[in-house]
């Protein structure tokens, strides 16, 4: 019987799920994910973590608990250190498997694959083999699985660039047919960590709300690399968090190119890195003053009503600027 690997639907799930899934399936494992985020998952997470922990990490813990309750043989909790040279993720990703092990008891085996592209290919290869050996013996089989997973990841990223959200792209990879949403008369850049906006429960369906108000939403992942690089080259000092850098880079790019009607940044309450990047971003937009900017903080108490009012006001402002609403 094949072994069951559980993948928690939180944090970088939204950036790498197709790749991770392929890797384990190619090794003959059965992949299960945790359920969609819901009240129970969040409550479990909150109970497990210390108060000040950011909401995305709390939620992640809830997903691990969900998988533990579902009964799986392994839970995949990668230690993602860097996905680009010289740039890192937040400390919480660096210590994630340790945190999971120390906070949650009676866990199935944790697969704590280290993902550190900074350390070079040899390092990654060693990690891949270490993890692969849990399932099969042959080195070449493992390498094959890894190659295939990389390919899947590239396809996944291409789909996103066509204008699909990460969640939509995951669905498409699983065979669903969806239309790219490039309609909408307002173009809004939504700058945020993927997990802050892709999890519909946490973000209260932010993307759909915007769509329903007639906006065409552009996320950080949809933006071409060269645009982000161009924006990031304007930083006084290169930023060492890669996702934070993407957010700032995209932000700086749009100030120059002016090809969006508005920019919204979303961050989670208690997020360390965002407290700095958010401030820099907002400052840039205030100084420049050409493109309206709004920032949203999500926490476990954010109310839907408040969010809607703010979004509507923002959209009205953008429409008014476009001359659609007579003042």
């Amino acid at each position, binding site marked *: 019987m094949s072994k069951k690997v559980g993948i928690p639907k939180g944090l970088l799930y939204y950036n790498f799920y197709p790749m991770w899934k392929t890797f384990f399936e190619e090794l003959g494992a059965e992949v299960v994910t945790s359920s969609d985020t819901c009240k129970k998952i969040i409550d479990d997470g909150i109970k497990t973590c210390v108060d000040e922990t950011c909401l995305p990490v709390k939620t992640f813990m809830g997903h691990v608990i969900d998988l533990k309750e579902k009964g799986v043989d392994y839970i995949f909790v990668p230690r993602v250190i860097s996905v680009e040279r010289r740039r890192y993720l937040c400390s919480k990703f660096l210590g994630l498997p340790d945190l999971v092990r120390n906070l949650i008891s009676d866990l199935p085996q944790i697969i704590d694959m280290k993902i550190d592209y900074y350390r070079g290919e040899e390092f990654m290869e060693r990690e891949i083999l270490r993890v692969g050996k849990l399932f099969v013996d042959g080195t070449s089989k493992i390498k094959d699985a890894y190659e295939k997973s990389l390919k899947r990841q590239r396809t996944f990223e291409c789909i996103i660039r066509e204008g699909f959200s990460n969640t939509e792209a995951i669905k498409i990879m699983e065979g669903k047919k969806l239309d790219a949403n490039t309609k909408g008369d307002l173009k809004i850049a939504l700058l945020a960590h993927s997990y802050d906006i892709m999890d519909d429960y946490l973000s209260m369906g932010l993307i759909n709300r915007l769509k329903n108000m007639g906006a065409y939403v552009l996320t950080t992942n949809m933006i071409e690399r060269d645009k982000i690089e161009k924006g990031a080259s304007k930083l006084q000092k290169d930023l060492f968090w890669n996702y934070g850098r993407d957010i700032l880079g995209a932000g700086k790019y749009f100030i120059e190119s002016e090809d969006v009607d508005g920019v919204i940044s979303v961050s989670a309450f208690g997020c*360390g890195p965002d407290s700095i990047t958010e401030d820099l971003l907002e400052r840039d937009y205030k100084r420049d003053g050409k493109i309206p900017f709004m920032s949203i903080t999500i926490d476990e108490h954010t109310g839907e009503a408040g969010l809607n009012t703010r979004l509507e006001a923002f959209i009205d402002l953008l429409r008014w600027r476009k001359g659609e609403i007579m003042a």
Partner: protein
Amino acid sequence: MKITYPHMGSLNMILKTMFEGINVEVVEPPPVTNKTLSIGVKYSPEFVCLPYKINLGNFIEALENGADTIIMLGGIGPCRFGYYGQAQKETLIDLGYKFNMIILDPPHGRLVDFLKELSSYFPDVYWKDALKAFIFAVQKMIIADKFEKKLLILRAHENEIGITTKIFEDYMEKIKNAKNKKELDSIYKEGLEKLKQNATIKREIQLKVALVGEIYLMLEPFSNLDILRSLNELGIEVTKTDFLSDYLINSAFKLPQRMEFKKYAHGYLERDIGGHGLNTVANTVKYAEKNYDGIIQIFPFTCTPEIVAQGIIAKVSSDKNIPVMSLSYDEKTGEAGYQTRLEAFKDLLERRRLKNIKKY
């Protein structure tokens, strides 16, 4: 050029000695007060951590006093400290200040590189003078740290509340103004003697606590509401696990300390996660194994690496059967219940000791 820098415990003393040694004018940031903090809070992003806010307050107060050049440390992440300087600079520009900001990113290696980088900003200074000034500054730092280590034990035995703190402060001022090594040594000897004379109380149950956590909070007494003093005055001997001298020496040279930390933390945290997260976990294990009565972790509210550490040391606490208390600080800490928590912790430690005594 009039130089200033942020406060961080005895850092002021060292930088002042160093810059004056090369004839660069220094505008000391005024001592950190509630006013400093409220200025900092006013202009900082709401969710940034406490050290950032105090630093910014220092800069504004020093600029108001005539400083025109700010020296700040940088970093390579992933702790957000590494980007403080950049964000603060933008804030100060928006506030309309005219100044120069030198952000020193740690060299990926040796102390010499650091000195070289620094000296490139002061072309008129002789390399030899700079080195001499630097060495003397380091000597002061080492003496000051040694003196403080003694204080943290002796103050728990002081004959009259507040008396050793007074002596300590007097002598730190003397150390700060010392002109040469010889003077430094005799100040230290004399100061230590005085401390000892005024600390002769003995207790049947003598509690010992190790203080672990984030470096700024550990080094800057204002930021931690002078927790060391509060603990000492409750009669507890304290071991502070970080001193400026250790910090500079360890970050300048890559010393075996990292390996030691990894060894202690093994089984709980398997790698460096930025900031002082690994140190916190390692020190908790280390002092638990040394049979201390308890561990206190201090850090700025929302500090990412310390939150990871907090979760992990809770497990260390139950595995090794040692009480651990985590305290996070922001501008509102201390308003309610803070002192009570310290006292409750002390009671807990005392009760545990009593129980153990009865067992035998």
